[in-house]
């Protein structure tokens, strides 16, 4: 009797779970198709022109006048690798979801099956590391974060030059010159330019988000009290930024400003984000992490001694510490998404933030500040300006068989091609190619954020600032060295201690320098 009772219960659980599973799978198949097709037709700006422009050498379609074409050697059989399966591992960033949504285009044209596995960056790092070390070929195409993956694992990536120079294969449309050059250097190479390991894939960059409404409304009052135009822009200095933030806080306390709660917000959690936020200040004060030259672009195996003992670095740390005392108190618990949420909730007047969040801010579902957000490059310091670049490339695992390498190459060509980049703009993607920015759609959207064109581009409001930030003298690229994950951890951990009042800014810099030198054996 007792036994049948138990068995009955177990059976019930089993059935209930199966029913649950069954219901859900049914629901998915019903609801997935309409939304997918809807998004395709509604957000594909190039759909009408694609049919006319398709040529023999380009089986993908979607090419638009003005973009470099995908071209193959005469008689190239795009279907020669049909039946191959490619596994892609990538962080869940905008291009990944954009490519995943359009993957049929590639699969139909080549007969290659593609599995795009989208995971967190931590998991990409773990899995890529494990795969490489076991010399496995579980993944053919790998999201190669320049600092956390490429710098350490470069020797496990295939040299893409050999494929690009292979006369029997298609080449990168528009050539390597069409990629934003500083990004190609950072994403593609390691140590020297002999071998090309990856092609630029995404490029989030830190710029300044501010509340246009607040800055317009109180402009005159600030002018009267402080004597200068406070609108954030290329002329703003970090000292002014601090003054403005403190002034807003003061006026909020007095009950004058009610639109926001705090002057500035920061991504100062004990997290990678804190290193990013601090680096902008550090570099603009003339501070550097290490001695080695070219450490930010091509990268190096040996960074040399830490330079954080320098007076510039200490001055930067002192300023950052002072600035964070005026920041929204939640800052020490926010990474970039926590900061973005607070900004979207209308609490903060200014924040150094990744430009990709403009999509969040302009989406009425997630934001109370739609249409009120302005973007510009970060303030300048005594020794220049720095906007942290956080982009990544995609590369091919060296240990996959040669045939699969070629199939993977076709995928890379398609995935980073101008026409594909143009097609996936709607997911909040930021092109890594010059040619795409030359298109009328982008030009119009970037110059007029209220235009119809801008509505098709979730990131329209911040792209101009991002482009400005990539210019030489404005962009900052962190050290590209194999031990960067450890250095990064030391930097943000010690900074977090500084912000918690555990140690002075000078001691913090000295401590980071000491630990870094121990780690790099310098």
């Amino acid at each position: 009797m007792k036994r049948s009772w138990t068995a009955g219960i177990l059976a019930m659980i089993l059935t209930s779970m199966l029913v649950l599973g069954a219901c859900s799978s049914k629901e998915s198949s019903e609801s997935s198709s309409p939304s997918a097709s809807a998004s395709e037709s509604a957000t594909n700006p190039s759909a009408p022109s694609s049919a006319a422009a398709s040529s023999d050498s380009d089986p993908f379609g979607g090419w638009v006048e003005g973009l470099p074409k995908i071209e193959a050697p005469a008689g190239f059989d795009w279907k020669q690798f049909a039946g191959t399966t490619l596994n892609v591992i990538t962080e869940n960033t905008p291009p990944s979801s954009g490519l995943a949504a359009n993957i049929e285009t590639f699969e139909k044209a080549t007969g290659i099956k593609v599995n795009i596995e989208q995971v967190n960056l931590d998991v990409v790092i773990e899995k890529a590391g494990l795969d490489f070390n076991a010399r496995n070929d579980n993944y053919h195409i790998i999201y190669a974060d320049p600092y956390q993956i490429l710098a350490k694992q470069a020797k496990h990536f295939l040299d893409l030059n050999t494929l690009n120079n292979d006369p029997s294969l298609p080449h990168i449309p528009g050539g390597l010159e069409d990629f934003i050059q500083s990004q190609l250097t950072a994403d593609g190479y390691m140590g020297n330019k002999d071998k090309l390991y990856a092609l630029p894939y995404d490029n989030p960059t830190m710029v300044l988000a501010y509340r246009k409404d607040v800055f317009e409304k109180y402009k005159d009052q600030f002018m009267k009290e402080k004597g200068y135009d406070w609108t954030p822009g290329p002329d703003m200095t970090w000292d002014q930024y601090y003054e403005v933030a403190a002034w807003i806080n003061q006026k909020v306390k007095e009950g004058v400003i009610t639109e926001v709660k705090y002057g500035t917000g920061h991504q100062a959690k004990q997290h990678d984000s804190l290193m990013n936020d601090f680096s902008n200040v550090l570099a603009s004060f003339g501070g550097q992490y290490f001695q080695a030259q070219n450490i930010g672009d091509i990268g190096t195996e040996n960074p040399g001694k830490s330079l954080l003992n320098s007076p510039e670095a200490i001055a930067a740390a002192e300023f950052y510490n002072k600035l964070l005392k005026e920041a929204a108190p939640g800052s020490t618990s926010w990474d970039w998404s926590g900061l973005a949420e607070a900004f979207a909730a209308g609490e903060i007047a200014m924040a150094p933030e990744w430009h990709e969040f403009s999509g969040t801010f302009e989406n009425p579902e997630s934001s109370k500040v739609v249409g009120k957000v302005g973007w510009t490059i970060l303030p300048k310091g005594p020794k220049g300006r720095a906007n942290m670049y956080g982009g990544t490339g995609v590369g091919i695992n060296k240990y996959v068989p040669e045939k699969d390498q070629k199939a993977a190459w076709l995928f890379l060509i398609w995935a980073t091609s101008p026409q594909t980049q143009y097609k996936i703009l709607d997911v909040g993607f930021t092109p890594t190619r010059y040619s795409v920015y030359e298109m009328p759609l982008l030009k119009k959207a970037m110059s007029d954020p209220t235009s119809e064109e801008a509505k098709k581009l979730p990131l329209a409001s911040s792209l101009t600032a991002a482009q400005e930030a990539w210019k030489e003298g404005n962009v900052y690229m962190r050290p590209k060295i194999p031990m960067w994950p450890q250095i990064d951890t030391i930097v943000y951990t010690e900074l977090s201690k500084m912000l918690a009042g555990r140690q002075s800014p000078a001691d913090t810099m000295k401590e980071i320098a000491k630990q870094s030198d121990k780690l790099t054996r310098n």
Partner: protein
Amino acid sequence: MLLPSMIVLAAVSLFPFFFMIYASFMDYALDMDKPRFAGFDNWKGVLTADTFWESWGRTAVYAGGGLIAQLALGIAVALLLYHIPKFRNLFSTLLMLPLFVAPIVTGLLWRFLLDPTYGLYNWFLQKLGMNVQILGDTAYAMPAVILMDVWEWTPLITIIVLAGLQTVPEEPLEAAEVDGANGWQKVRYILLPMVRRMIVVALLVRSMDILRYVDTITIATEGGPADATKIIGYYLMQVAFRFQDIGGAAALGLTMLIVSTLLGRFFIKVMRSEEA
């Protein structure tokens, strides 16, 4: 009949164990495929790092605080449930719910509740005049992650102890009543001693897991702020995955294994002395 289990266990526990010992003496830094013999370098590196000892210190606070809090609360709730005349099943069923929440969801959920911008609990605290950023403040972050663990796992202790209480025979209780014992004395001298073994079982299971599970901390604080919640398990994750320092991770993992084993031995010894 034991054999299949033993083979499976041996295969998947002995190999990792010996691998850990081997790896802890190898240097993987230059070439992970061809490690070089490193002598005691990894051990020296691990044992001389301040972070290592600090993390163990915080682990003691986290595990000690968490275990004591959930044990006290769990026993208290079990006694409450034992003493109420009606709705015992309803209450105990509802109270079990947090146990079923995946640790990763627990971390995310509590981060949501404590968020400075839109957190429900943060809002309550502000209404009470406490303007603090729980997860961003070194003084509050550790208590907060301890509370998360307590929230999730107290129900386990409750059901285990309640299970024990329900089997306590009536006679000694009636005898005590005749002798004029009050409610507290009955709890103290009859009920608690009779469920001591249950408590040790619960402690054994929880002490093993509290050292190992870091899903909640990973998602809620990532060890911060200022390392305030970096317990040894999280530190190991960093060394193993973020730094991909296999040798160091192996040495670190072995120290954890040793501590867990000693703790386990201790509790089992206590349990067996109860049996005797």
